[in-house]
């Protein structure tokens, strides 16, 4: 009988925290590739990104199994499941960014590196805000709501940088193929923040559903 908010729920919440931590590590590792001028030493970083992403997947699966063994009210399980999957997609996107650079051996022009770093920082900040929103979801709804707004703010800022970056890419005197690669990179980095925002939308829904 799970009349109280009990042991299983607390275990799932801990797994949510572990998952957020792992997704954060995937994002941080990927950031290293953007900051570096990518030469052969990127291989180890990309390996770490993949390994951390896989660990995040594994934590997510454990949380899902625990949820379906009876944690949370049946009506809430779908929402919680949707949330952890949405957070997981942020890690997937960070891995894609690493792949875009590594697999295509993409060199970021020095003139644009700072802008890419700024755009990525917005995605990092939006994820940090998402993590705050998830961590406070069970203890302080107001803090969680504020963090959701923060996610949106960082996502908007990132969008602005992404647009100006793409515009600048197409003013460069480089091959069209490389321009398209660089545009693709800007879009993928922006998608990290977009996915963080998608996850934060789910938090809003969970709060709304648990309100009278």
């Amino acid at each position, binding site marked *: *009988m*799970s*009349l*109280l*908010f009990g042991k299983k*729920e607390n275990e799932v919440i801990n797994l949510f925290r572990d998952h957020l931590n792992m997704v954060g590590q995937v994002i941080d590792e990927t950031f290293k590739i953007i900051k570096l001028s990518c030469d052969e030493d990127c291989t180890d970083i990309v390996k770490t990104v993949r390994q951390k992403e896989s660990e995040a997947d594994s934590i997510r699966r454990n949380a899902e199994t625990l949820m379906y063994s*009876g944690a*949370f*009210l*049946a*009506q*809430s399980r779908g929402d919680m499941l949707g949330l952890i999957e949405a957070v997981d997609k942020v890690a997937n996107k960070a891995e894609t960014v690493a792949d875009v650079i590594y697999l295509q051996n993409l060199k970021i022009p020095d003139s644009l590196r700072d802008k890419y770093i700024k755009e990525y920082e917005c995605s990092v900040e939006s994820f940090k805000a998402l993590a705050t929103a998830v961590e406070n*979801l*069970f*203890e*302080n*709804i*107001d803090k969680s709501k504020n963090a959701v707004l923060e996610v949106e703010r960082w996502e908007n800022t990132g969008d602005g940088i992404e647009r100006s970056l793409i515009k600048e890419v197409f003013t460069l005197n480089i091959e069209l193929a490389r321009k398209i690669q660089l545009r693709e990179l800007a879009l993928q980095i922006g998608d990290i923040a977009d996915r963080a925002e998608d996850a934060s939308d789910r938090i809003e829904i*969970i*709060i709304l*559903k*648990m*309100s*009278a």
Partner: protein
Amino acid sequence: MLRDLLMIATAMLLGWSLGYNNMATIFGPLITSDIIKYRVATITGAIFIFLGAFLGGDSGISTMNSVTHVTFDISVSAALSTAIVVLIMTHYSLPTSITQGIIGSLVGVGLVERDVNWWIVGKVAISWLITPFGALVIAVFSYIVISLFYNRLKSLRLRGTVVRLMSFGFSIYASYSLGANNLANITGPFVGKGLFGREEALLIGGIAMALGFLTASKKVIRTIGKDITIMEPFDSSIAIFGEGTSLLIFSFLGIPISSAQASVGSTAGVGIVNGIKTVSLKTILRIVSGWLVTPFITGTIAVIIYMVMKIWG
């Protein structure tokens, strides 16, 4: 001896079907939400419906055995016809109400005997009209008041616990109220004129309803529970509270009402607060058909049974 057995068997059948039919609407949301297990729900519900019947069921008895001057033949034909109709309609998943059935059958036989207490019948009929609206008002009011406190809780963890406790507490409360209000439907017609004594009536009716709760089908509970749990747990617990409160208020007034109609009213109330439509034209037609069709059918069958019993002596 045969008379006693027939009375007990008829009352047991009626009480069992009442418990069986209502278990799902009261405990369905808890079981489908995995708040409590099926067996825990049936046992807890059975205990509280019995307590409600035994401790609070007395007041409605006077109403039920005053519709007409009850005799053995009248009581058995009324209870038996209602039990038959309820079982057939339940089997075909048609809406029915034991309260309306038993009143219809007593009025039917009373008409044959030219002995109907229209004052009591009128009082009951008005209460039927009031029930859905009363339940609606109770649900709206309690939703507004309880949500004021609930929304102040800033921890989702705490809200989860509160909503679980509310759902469980209100289901117990509704079980008690159902027992208190509907006991009169089960054994009310048998009280007086050397039939059941009051304590016997409370005991037999309570046991019968409790057995209905205990034997309620897990599959039916899950099916009905899923329909109700389209609502959020907070909403469904308020709907159950509204239903339970309507039943309890009318049991204090000594008037048995239909739990299904109380449930429709309180669900509509929750819908109004949330700005969503929870009651369709189909539901309204169901209520009206409950008012008209069920009493007519049970009345007709009760008259047939009564005539047969009279002919056979």
